[in-house]
């Protein structure tokens, strides 16, 4: 695999137009969020180390997805959304004035809960959609290698290598989600955010996606929101437990290494949650 990656290095966009290929550290500092006058997150701080998988767990409605969407600046696309605090990618605030939001989103990619391949494009075109959309040129010879590389990383290559011209929507749910992962990987992000990527999938597809997460996490920092505690225990190195009591904004109750959160939680609410006493 590593020999392949060095060989394919020359087929990826040249270093001047792409960023450092290693994973990056994401650091959220005192992030608060509002929808209109309704505060939904209250001074959340979290460090997501490079090359590791950080899971955000907690009951529904605690602001995990909102926090995730703040990380890649998708939160502000809602008209009434506001935020405070900083999100630092390798030390630089992505919300700093003068930073292009499109650039941030290239470096911090996102996979959504419902698989959304572009139906008007073939599987091959879906993989390179990120480049086409941002106007990045890829020469034809490099394109094929890039598609194969991304699909291999997503664990989908063997299943679709003979079906590349078919439309993206012709795949099963699990395959579509892996196609979306391949699409996000093709632009070579430093961080990949995943918003409950397996909740709409069957157990077999879920397992495949989790295998993919394990394989790519060395090159890409992953932050995954999940309702499934067993999944969090399986895939993540670190966990952050979100909680929002009735009527109050979400906060992180406890964060730390996965083994510690599940085996020896410090806060009784964390213990209650990971032991299934409330959901």
């Amino acid at each position, binding site marked *: 695999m590593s020999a392949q990656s060095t060989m394919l290095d020359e087929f990826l966009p040249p270093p001047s137009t792409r960023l450092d290929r290693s994973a990056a550290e994401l650091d959220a500092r*005192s992030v*608060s969020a*509002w929808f209109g006058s309704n*505060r939904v997150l*209250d*001074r959340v*701080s*979290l*460090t997501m180390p490079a090359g590791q998988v950080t899971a955000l767990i907690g009951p529904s409605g605690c602001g995990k997805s909102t926090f995730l969407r703040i990380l890649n*600046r998708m939160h*502000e696309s809602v008209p009434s959304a*506001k*935020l*405070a*605090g900083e999100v630092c990618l390798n030390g630089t605030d992505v*919300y700093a*004035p*003068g*930073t*292009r*939001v*499109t*650039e941030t989103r290239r470096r911090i990619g996102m996979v959504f809960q419902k698989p959304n391949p572009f139906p008007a494009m073939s599987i091959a075109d879906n993989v390179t959609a990120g480049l086409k959309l941002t106007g990045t040129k890829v020469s034809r010879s490099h394109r094929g290698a890039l598609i194969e590389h991304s699909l291999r990383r997503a664990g989908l290559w063997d299943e679709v290598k003979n079906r590349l011209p078919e439309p993206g929507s012709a795949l099963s749910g699990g395959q579509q989600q892996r196609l979306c992962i391949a699409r996000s990987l093709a632009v070579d992000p430093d961080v990949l955010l995943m918003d409950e990527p397996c909740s709409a999938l069957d157990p077999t597809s879920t397992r495949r996606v989790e295998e993919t997460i394990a394989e790519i996490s060395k090159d890409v920092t992953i932050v995954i929101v999940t309702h499934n505690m067993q999944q969090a225990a399986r895939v993540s190195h670190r966990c*952050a437990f979100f909680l929002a*009591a*009735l*009527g*109050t*904004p979400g*906060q*992180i*109750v*406890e*964060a*730390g290494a996965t083994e510690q959160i599940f085996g020896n939680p*410090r*806060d*009784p*609410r964390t213990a209650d949650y990971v032991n299934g006493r409330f959901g």
Partner: protein
Amino acid sequence: MTLSIFGGPRADDTAPLPIVSDDVPRRIDAGWPPSDKIFRHVARTIGLVVLVITGSIGAFLGYQAIPTLRRYGFGFFTESQWQPELDKVGISAVLVGTIEVALIALVIGFPLALLTALYISEYAPPRIKSSLVAMVDLMAAVPSIIYGLWGFFLLQPHAIYLARWLSQNFGWIPIFQVDTDPNAAAWAQSQYTASAFIAGLCVAMMVIPMACAVMRGVFAQAPSGEREAALALGSTRWGMVRAVVLPFGRGGIIGGTMLGLGRALGETIAVLLIISPAFEIKYKILTVGTNTTSALIAARFGEATSAQLAALLTAGFVLFVITLFVNTVAAVLVGRSRSGAATEI
């Protein structure tokens, strides 16, 4: 490393967490590239240009109407003659004719549209359902001049018999009276042609597909849970339709009908082909001669001087206001009803 805000576990975990933050939202500049901003400006400009153009129709007509109304005053609405050379112009006869033709079209078209919509949505075999929907849409797309041809050449010769039958048997109702003797052996056929009744029949063909399409769309959205509940209680199909589909579709039925009414008020070419213009306020719909606003405009504009043109534009403005009102009411009714709210836009 992050700890909870208050450090350490709390004994009482049901009390709400205190909010100590005093931060305020920050200003964010998304930093879209210039091409993105240009795109948004272009789209906004196009939208406003279209708004100006379409909005200016009403404004333009209204502006032209001012001198005419100032000149003729309220008499414009009460005068029935249209003789510009004698400076007697008025749209009362024309308005009455417009409403008559539209109402006749509604009276005939509404039940037929409702029955067709019910048939397609509830009674048609599933295999041909989509073909029937296509046929209704096709019926809406047929140009009105073709319906005018059909009405004038095919329908009229047969419809005058129906008109005569109506005047024979229901002549005691004032609107069905005719000026000649319907029971005469050699009855005057020409007295029954070119009437508001026949024009209304023809316009009904244009009202039906429009109303039927709206009604059918609404019936298709009647919740299947309620349908099944009715059937599970042992109801027949008609019982289920009466209990579930029709009440649910009330807004769509009325809205679709009003849309058809709006169309009927503005129909020009079919009316023009059928009627023989007459400028009098006439309530006898079966007899020859009537006029509608749009037919008046189409027929008279060519020989109009600028003052007469202004009068025609005023008539057009009145028609515009009426049609706009009817269509707005229709949209509100459909939107506020239960069936309209269920419509996904």
